[in-house]
């Protein structure tokens, strides 16, 4: 009886693992199989044409804009916030409130961020449906990610580094940017790279704040669509699975590149700091 139960459970474990891997392989395989036919130099670097057959360069540019703008704002704020929480603040009620707020922000679904962005940035601040409105919304989305990863890496900086630097007569600020931040760099960088992944994959919040205009954005105040939104819209409106999958390939390649560079950078920097 025990053997039977053991074998049954063992079989279920194998079956589940097989199912998970098979389904996930199927998705990636499907995207590549369906979309590969469209991938060409012209498709990636060509301008979009509403009649079809055009490229996705405007969507790539829009995606890059949203990444750059939201990181320019979120990175310094996130790092300094983590520095405050870990290095400066007295651990008390204020810190608990800030931590609670940061954690709660992580749990909010992106459609709610989209609602907020659509009313606050688009309407109240009169930015209109635009890249800048979407980027500001994305800033709020990635802020908790950057704060958390930075704080984690600050925790790994040994206390002796701080004590050594302070004992040499450095001020707290000097200790921070000469000693603590450099040794926490690998963790901070991987946090930033994680955020890029989050921004690239985001769709609902961008859909409600940047709009859907399929053209090269004139400035960051124009409405435009990112790769994910494009992939969604061509599926929903035109039922063009092939095109959606081709955009999907570009997205997957970007995500892979981001992940590999994250691993590479943190390995490189870990070596450098350990020397």
């Amino acid at each position, binding site marked *: 009886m025990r053997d039977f139960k*053991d074998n049954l459970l063992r079989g279920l*474990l194998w079956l589940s693992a097989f199912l998970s891997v098979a389904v996930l392989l199927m*998705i990636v395989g499907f995207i590549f199989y369906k979309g590969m036919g469209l991938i060409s130099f012209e498709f990636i670097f060509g301008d979009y044409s509403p009649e079809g057959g055009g490229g996705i360069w405007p969507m790539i540019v829009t995606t890059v804009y949203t990444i750059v703008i939201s990181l320019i704002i979120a990175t310094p704020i996130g790092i300094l916030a983590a520095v405050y929480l870990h290095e400066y603040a007295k651990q008390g009620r204020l810190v608990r409130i800030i931590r609670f707020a940061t954690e709660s922000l992580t749990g909010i679904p*992106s459609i*709610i961020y*989209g*609602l*907020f962005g659509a009313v606050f940035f688009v309407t109240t601040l009169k930015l209109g449906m635009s890249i800048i409105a979407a980027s500001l919304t994305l800033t709020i989305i990635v802020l908790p990610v950057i704060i958390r990863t930075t704080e984690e890496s600050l925790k790994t900086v040994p206390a002796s580094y701080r004590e050594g630097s302070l004992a040499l007569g450095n001020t707290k600020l000097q200790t921070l940017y000469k000693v603590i931040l450099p040794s926490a760099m690998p963790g901070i960088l991987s946090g930033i790279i994680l955020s890029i992944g989050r921004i690239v994959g985001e769709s609902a919040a961008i859909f409600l704040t940047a709009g859907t205009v399929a053209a090269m954005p004139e400035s960051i105040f124009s409405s435009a669509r990112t790769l994910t939104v494009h992939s969604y819209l061509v599926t929903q409106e035109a039922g063009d699975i092939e095109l959606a999958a081709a955009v999907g390939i570009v997205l997957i390649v970007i995500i892979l590149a981001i992940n590999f560079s994250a691993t590479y950078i943190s390995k490189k920097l870990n070596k450098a700091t350990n020397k």
Partner: protein
Amino acid sequence: MSIPTENKQTENIGKANKRKYFLESVSSKLFMICALLSVITLVLIIGFVFYKGSHPFVVGGYSFIDFLFGTDWVPSEDKFGIFPMIIASIYATIGALIIGVPIGLFTAIFLAEIASTRVAKIISPAIQLLAGIPSVLYGVFGLAIIVPFLQNTFGLAKGQSLIAVILVLAIMMLPTIVTVAETAIRAVPQSYREGSLALGVSHIGTIFRVIVPAAKSGIMTAVVLGLGRAIGETMAVILVAGNSLIVPTSLTDSIRPLTTNIALEMGYAAGTHQEMLFATGIVLFSFILILNFVLAKISAKGGN
């Protein structure tokens, strides 16, 4: 002669020190402001959504009960009932959990306890990468493969249905659940395994009676994270849900969950209609708070 220079020196040092102290205090204030920004944005978000969403009930004279339990959503006729969407969201989430959690958890156990190191070293990072794939692509896959499959297999008029949403969400939460649960299972001390095996408990028995209970809180975290991804998902769900405004009675009914209601109508909604979409947001928000709370309670109870 020497006295004035000394004075001057101390004066200079004093000045430098003053500047240093000034910089110190300014920077620590600046850091605090940055940290407070996350509190401010959270308050702004909740404030805006609740202010906008409660407006029709507080000022406009609409009944909140009718909003929650009304079954008609016809904005042009001033009818706003989201009961079908609430039910659709609950069914879709629970369904995705029923399928996604056991498969994800068993896969995690397999990778941590049964698979050889070489196999695990290939599969685990691959699954981790899949967690980063944009969710829209899961929707595209669902529409292109799962929907036609359901249509043909069960002879449905329309493959976009509750079961299609459940399957897409279950697949989408798999990478998250597997990755987090695997980490939790690997963190169980080796001595637990050895102790149990030494007492004559079989390998499988050890896994299910010793290791899984020991990793319970990490596994719970995995479930909560997967759940968060499922409930909040919007664009992928729109593609496979079908968007019918009915209370679903079977797995093959076409549905419209809360999130998709917001995304589909936000583009053109104005006035009360728009405020009702914010009210939908409030319901979604409370939904997530309640679920997280319940799961936290369950895991706390399990811990005792």
